């Protein structure tokens, strides 16, 4: 039960952080990724600030956090990251902010999240075939 409340609190904070920082605004995100245009570097500080918190947090709570065991730097890692980046650059949404943006009830956010879920299942289906 307390784990449920922790998840609720963490999700709430995460959602607010994404809005306040501008990460849930695709215009802002694309302005950050558009280095050849009118570059808005401010999201670099959002990423930096978030990593500063996790660096300290993971040190403190190391024993309590399940740590991923995969260590390989392989083709799926690089290929997957590259595909994700292409999609991120087209729409300006990554998964967390996309779900947060559902709260605007915009057609765009609904289409994006629905497609994202289909994309995830497509990968699952392909992985099963192979």
């Amino acid at each position, binding site marked *: 039960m307390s784990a449920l409340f922790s998840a609720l609190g963490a999700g709430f904070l*995460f959602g607010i952080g994404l*809005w306040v920082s501008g990460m849930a*605004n*695709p*215009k802002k995100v*694309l302005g950050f*990724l*558009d*280095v050849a*245009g009118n570059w808005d570097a401010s999201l670099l500080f959002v*990423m930096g600030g*978030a*990593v500063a*918190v*996790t*660096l300290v*947090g*993971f040190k403190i709570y190391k024993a309590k956090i399940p740590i*991923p065991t*995969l260590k*390989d*730097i392989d083709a*799926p*890692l*690089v*290929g*997957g*990251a*590259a*595909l*994700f*980046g*292409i*999609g*991120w*650059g*087209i*729409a*300006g*949404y*990554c*998964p*967390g902010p*996309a779900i947060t943006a559902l709260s*605007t009830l915009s*057609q*765009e956010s609904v*289409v*994006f*999240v*629905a*497609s*994202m879920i*289909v*994309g*995830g*299942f*497509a*990968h*699952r289906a392909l992985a099963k075939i192979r």
Partner: protein
Amino acid sequence: MPLRETLPTGWVAAAGLLVGFGTRMGGGCTSGHGVCGLGRLSARSLVAVITFMASAMVSVFIVRHLLGVAS
């Protein structure tokens, strides 16, 4: 927040498919590899972050400046 109404729906759907597929294939996104992976100094995550940052910047350049899509 002002909503964006310029990106054609086909592009939105294609982007969503790529993000969903790529995140599963690469085992993480900006939150997983970026915030959490970098926070625990994972080399795997660093490679992923550099890759998706670079590919996203190239993607924006192509879509916005070469193809002229209003994103």
